[in-house]
Protein backbone atom coordinates (compact mmCIF):
# COMPACT_ATOMS: atom_id res chain seq x y z
CA UNK A 1 0.00 0.00 0.00
CA UNK A 2 0.96 3.62 -0.56
CA UNK A 3 1.08 6.25 2.19
CA UNK A 4 2.00 9.91 2.34
CA UNK A 5 4.62 10.75 4.96
CA UNK A 6 5.36 14.22 6.36
CA UNK A 7 8.29 15.41 8.51
CA UNK A 8 8.24 18.65 10.50
CA UNK A 9 10.55 21.11 12.26
CA UNK A 10 13.89 19.79 13.53
CA UNK A 11 13.15 16.34 12.19
CA UNK A 12 12.47 17.73 8.70
CA UNK A 13 15.80 19.54 8.82
CA UNK A 14 17.72 16.53 10.13
CA UNK A 15 16.28 14.31 7.39
CA UNK A 16 16.56 17.01 4.75
CA UNK A 17 13.06 15.99 3.66
CA UNK A 18 9.61 17.56 4.18
CA UNK A 19 7.62 14.61 2.92
CA UNK A 20 7.37 11.72 0.51
CA UNK A 21 4.98 9.12 -0.84
CA UNK A 22 6.12 5.61 -0.04
CA UNK A 23 5.02 2.14 -1.15
CA UNK A 24 5.02 0.03 1.99
CA UNK A 25 5.96 -3.65 2.02
CA UNK A 26 3.68 -6.26 3.59
CA UNK A 27 4.26 -6.29 7.35
CA UNK A 28 4.23 -2.51 7.81
CA UNK A 29 0.75 -1.88 9.22
CA UNK A 30 1.20 0.60 12.04
CA UNK A 31 3.19 3.71 12.93
CA UNK A 32 5.89 1.85 14.87
CA UNK A 33 6.48 -0.53 11.99
CA UNK A 34 6.67 2.37 9.55
CA UNK A 35 9.23 4.07 11.77
CA UNK A 36 11.36 0.89 11.80
CA UNK A 37 10.98 0.54 8.03
CA UNK A 38 12.21 4.11 7.44
CA UNK A 39 15.04 3.76 10.00
CA UNK A 40 16.37 0.76 8.07
CA UNK A 41 17.28 3.07 5.20
CA UNK A 42 20.53 3.92 6.98
CA UNK A 43 22.14 6.04 9.67
CA UNK A 44 20.90 9.37 8.30
CA UNK A 45 17.37 8.05 8.85
CA UNK A 46 17.95 5.85 11.86
CA UNK A 47 19.49 8.56 14.06
CA UNK A 48 16.82 11.28 13.69
CA UNK A 49 13.98 8.73 13.85
CA UNK A 50 15.31 7.12 17.04
CA UNK A 51 14.64 10.18 19.22
CA UNK A 52 12.71 9.07 22.27
CA UNK A 53 10.28 11.97 22.28
CA UNK A 54 9.19 11.68 18.62
CA UNK A 55 5.49 12.36 18.05
CA UNK A 56 3.18 10.91 15.40
CA UNK A 57 -0.05 11.78 13.65
CA UNK A 58 -2.20 9.67 11.33
CA UNK A 59 -4.55 11.59 9.08
CA UNK A 60 -3.86 14.76 11.07
CA UNK A 61 -4.74 13.32 14.47
CA UNK A 62 -2.23 12.58 17.24
CA UNK A 63 -1.32 8.87 17.13
CA UNK A 64 0.93 6.36 18.87
CA UNK A 65 3.29 3.60 17.65
CA UNK A 66 0.39 1.11 17.72
CA UNK A 67 -1.87 3.25 15.55
CA UNK A 68 -2.86 1.39 12.38
CA UNK A 69 -2.17 2.87 8.97
CA UNK A 70 -3.97 2.01 5.76
CA UNK A 71 -3.74 2.77 2.03
CA UNK A 72 -3.75 6.49 1.27
CA UNK A 73 -3.20 7.56 4.87
CA UNK A 74 -1.21 10.65 5.75
CA UNK A 75 1.36 9.87 8.45
CA UNK A 76 3.40 12.60 10.12
CA UNK A 77 6.52 12.43 12.28
CA UNK A 78 7.57 15.44 14.37
CA UNK A 79 9.22 16.64 17.61
CA UNK A 80 7.10 17.68 20.62
CA UNK A 81 5.12 20.78 19.74
CA UNK A 82 6.21 24.21 20.99
CA UNK A 83 3.59 26.71 19.82
CA UNK A 84 1.59 29.20 21.80
Amino acid at each position, binding site marked *: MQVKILYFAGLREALGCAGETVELPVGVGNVGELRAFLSARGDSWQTPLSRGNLRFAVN*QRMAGPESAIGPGDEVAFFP*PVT*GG
Partner: protein
Amino acid sequence: MTPGAISVQREDFDPGREADALIAGRRDVGAVATFVGLVRDANEGCGVDAMTLEHYPGMTEAALEEIVADAQQRWPLQGVRVIHRYGRLETGARIVFVAVASAHRGAAFAACEFIMDFLKTRAPFWKKEETPDGGRWVDAREADDDAAARWQKKA
Protein backbone atom coordinates in the same frame (compact mmCIF):
# COMPACT_ATOMS: atom_id res chain seq x y z
CA MET B 1 -18.75 26.38 17.84
CA THR B 2 -19.47 29.46 15.80
CA PRO B 3 -17.80 29.68 12.39
CA GLY B 4 -14.65 31.74 12.37
CA ALA B 5 -13.76 30.79 15.94
CA ILE B 6 -10.31 29.60 14.84
CA SER B 7 -7.77 31.31 12.61
CA VAL B 8 -4.28 30.16 11.69
CA GLN B 9 -2.65 33.02 9.84
CA ARG B 10 0.55 34.91 9.04
CA GLU B 11 -1.01 38.31 9.72
CA ASP B 12 -1.12 40.16 13.02
CA PHE B 13 -4.45 40.61 14.80
CA ASP B 14 -6.10 43.23 17.01
CA PRO B 15 -6.92 41.70 20.42
CA GLY B 16 -9.29 44.50 21.40
CA ARG B 17 -11.29 44.26 18.18
CA GLU B 18 -11.44 40.46 18.41
CA ALA B 19 -12.71 40.58 21.99
CA ASP B 20 -15.30 43.21 21.03
CA ALA B 21 -16.52 41.07 18.13
CA LEU B 22 -17.05 38.16 20.51
CA ILE B 23 -19.63 40.07 22.55
CA ALA B 24 -21.03 42.40 19.88
CA GLY B 25 -24.80 42.82 20.23
CA ARG B 26 -24.99 40.51 23.25
CA ARG B 27 -26.23 41.39 26.72
CA ASP B 28 -25.97 37.98 28.36
CA VAL B 29 -22.17 37.90 28.64
CA GLY B 30 -20.81 38.69 32.10
CA ALA B 31 -17.13 37.83 31.67
CA VAL B 32 -14.50 37.87 28.95
CA ALA B 33 -11.08 36.39 29.67
CA THR B 34 -8.35 36.83 27.08
CA PHE B 35 -4.77 35.76 26.62
CA VAL B 36 -2.09 37.11 24.28
CA GLY B 37 1.24 35.34 23.86
CA LEU B 38 4.18 37.39 22.58
CA VAL B 39 7.71 36.76 21.30
CA ARG B 40 10.05 37.56 24.20
CA ASP B 41 13.58 38.82 23.67
CA ALA B 42 15.07 36.26 26.01
CA ASN B 43 14.57 32.53 26.36
CA GLU B 44 16.62 30.62 28.91
CA GLY B 45 19.18 33.37 29.14
CA CYS B 46 19.98 33.64 25.44
CA GLY B 47 19.02 36.66 23.38
CA VAL B 48 16.33 36.13 20.75
CA ASP B 49 15.90 38.53 17.83
CA ALA B 50 13.04 36.77 16.12
CA MET B 51 11.53 33.36 15.59
CA THR B 52 9.89 31.38 12.85
CA LEU B 53 6.80 29.37 13.59
CA GLU B 54 6.29 26.26 11.50
CA HIS B 55 2.97 24.44 11.59
CA TYR B 56 1.15 21.48 10.06
CA PRO B 57 -1.56 22.95 7.83
CA GLY B 58 -4.81 21.07 8.18
CA MET B 59 -3.92 19.30 11.39
CA THR B 60 -3.37 22.63 13.15
CA GLU B 61 -6.94 23.75 12.55
CA ALA B 62 -8.33 20.30 13.46
CA ALA B 63 -6.35 20.20 16.71
CA LEU B 64 -7.47 23.70 17.73
CA GLU B 65 -11.08 22.89 16.93
CA GLU B 66 -10.92 19.78 19.09
CA ILE B 67 -9.41 21.74 22.00
CA VAL B 68 -12.13 24.40 21.74
CA ALA B 69 -14.84 21.73 21.54
CA ASP B 70 -13.41 20.08 24.69
CA ALA B 71 -13.53 23.42 26.51
CA GLN B 72 -17.14 23.97 25.41
CA GLN B 73 -18.08 20.58 26.81
CA ARG B 74 -16.50 21.35 30.17
CA TRP B 75 -17.84 24.87 30.74
CA PRO B 76 -20.93 26.83 29.67
CA LEU B 77 -19.28 29.20 27.20
CA GLN B 78 -20.93 31.92 25.13
CA GLY B 79 -18.09 32.50 22.68
CA VAL B 80 -14.54 31.42 21.94
CA ARG B 81 -11.95 32.93 19.60
CA VAL B 82 -8.50 31.45 18.90
CA ILE B 83 -5.90 32.98 16.58
CA HIS B 84 -2.42 31.55 16.08
CA ARG B 85 0.17 33.04 13.76
CA TYR B 86 2.89 31.25 11.82
CA GLY B 87 5.91 32.43 9.82
CA ARG B 88 8.63 34.82 10.96
CA LEU B 89 7.86 36.95 14.02
CA GLU B 90 10.12 39.54 15.63
CA THR B 91 10.47 40.09 19.38
CA GLY B 92 7.47 41.90 20.81
CA ALA B 93 5.16 40.45 18.13
CA ARG B 94 1.89 38.76 19.05
CA ILE B 95 1.86 34.98 18.48
CA VAL B 96 -1.40 33.70 19.86
CA PHE B 97 -4.76 35.02 21.05
CA VAL B 98 -7.44 33.23 23.04
CA ALA B 99 -10.66 34.89 24.18
CA VAL B 100 -13.52 33.25 26.03
CA ALA B 101 -16.91 34.76 26.88
CA SER B 102 -19.17 33.33 29.56
CA ALA B 103 -21.86 34.40 32.01
CA HIS B 104 -19.44 34.02 34.93
CA ARG B 105 -15.75 34.69 35.40
CA GLY B 106 -14.79 31.26 36.74
CA ALA B 107 -15.74 29.52 33.49
CA ALA B 108 -14.12 32.23 31.34
CA PHE B 109 -10.79 32.09 33.18
CA ALA B 110 -10.68 28.29 33.37
CA ALA B 111 -11.57 27.73 29.72
CA CYS B 112 -9.09 30.34 28.51
CA GLU B 113 -6.25 28.74 30.47
CA PHE B 114 -7.37 25.22 29.47
CA ILE B 115 -7.27 26.15 25.79
CA MET B 116 -3.78 27.65 26.13
CA ASP B 117 -2.49 24.63 28.06
CA PHE B 118 -3.70 22.17 25.43
CA LEU B 119 -2.69 24.40 22.53
CA LYS B 120 0.85 24.30 23.97
CA THR B 121 0.92 20.49 24.03
CA ARG B 122 -1.44 19.37 21.25
CA ALA B 123 -1.42 21.92 18.43
CA PRO B 124 1.29 21.19 15.83
CA PHE B 125 3.38 24.37 15.94
CA TRP B 126 7.15 24.50 16.26
CA LYS B 127 9.26 27.53 17.12
CA LYS B 128 12.73 28.14 15.76
CA GLU B 129 14.52 31.04 17.42
CA GLU B 130 17.02 33.30 15.71
CA THR B 131 19.84 34.11 18.13
CA PRO B 132 23.17 35.90 17.61
CA ASP B 133 24.67 32.39 17.31
CA GLY B 134 22.24 31.08 14.70
CA GLY B 135 18.92 29.24 14.57
CA ARG B 136 17.74 26.99 17.37
CA TRP B 137 14.60 24.88 17.65
CA VAL B 138 12.82 25.51 20.93
CA ASP B 139 12.62 22.47 23.20
CA ALA B 140 9.27 21.43 24.58
CA ARG B 141 8.91 22.38 28.25
CA GLU B 142 7.98 19.79 30.81
CA ALA B 143 6.06 22.54 32.61
CA ASP B 144 3.69 22.67 29.63
CA ASP B 145 2.94 18.96 29.89
CA ASP B 146 2.33 19.40 33.62
CA ALA B 147 0.00 22.33 32.94
CA ALA B 148 -2.08 20.25 30.54
CA ALA B 149 -2.03 17.20 32.82
CA ARG B 150 -3.61 19.01 35.77
CA TRP B 151 -6.89 19.34 33.83
CA GLN B 152 -7.08 15.55 33.70
CA LYS B 153 -7.07 15.35 37.49
CA LYS B 154 -9.90 17.84 37.73
CA ALA B 155 -12.05 15.95 35.21
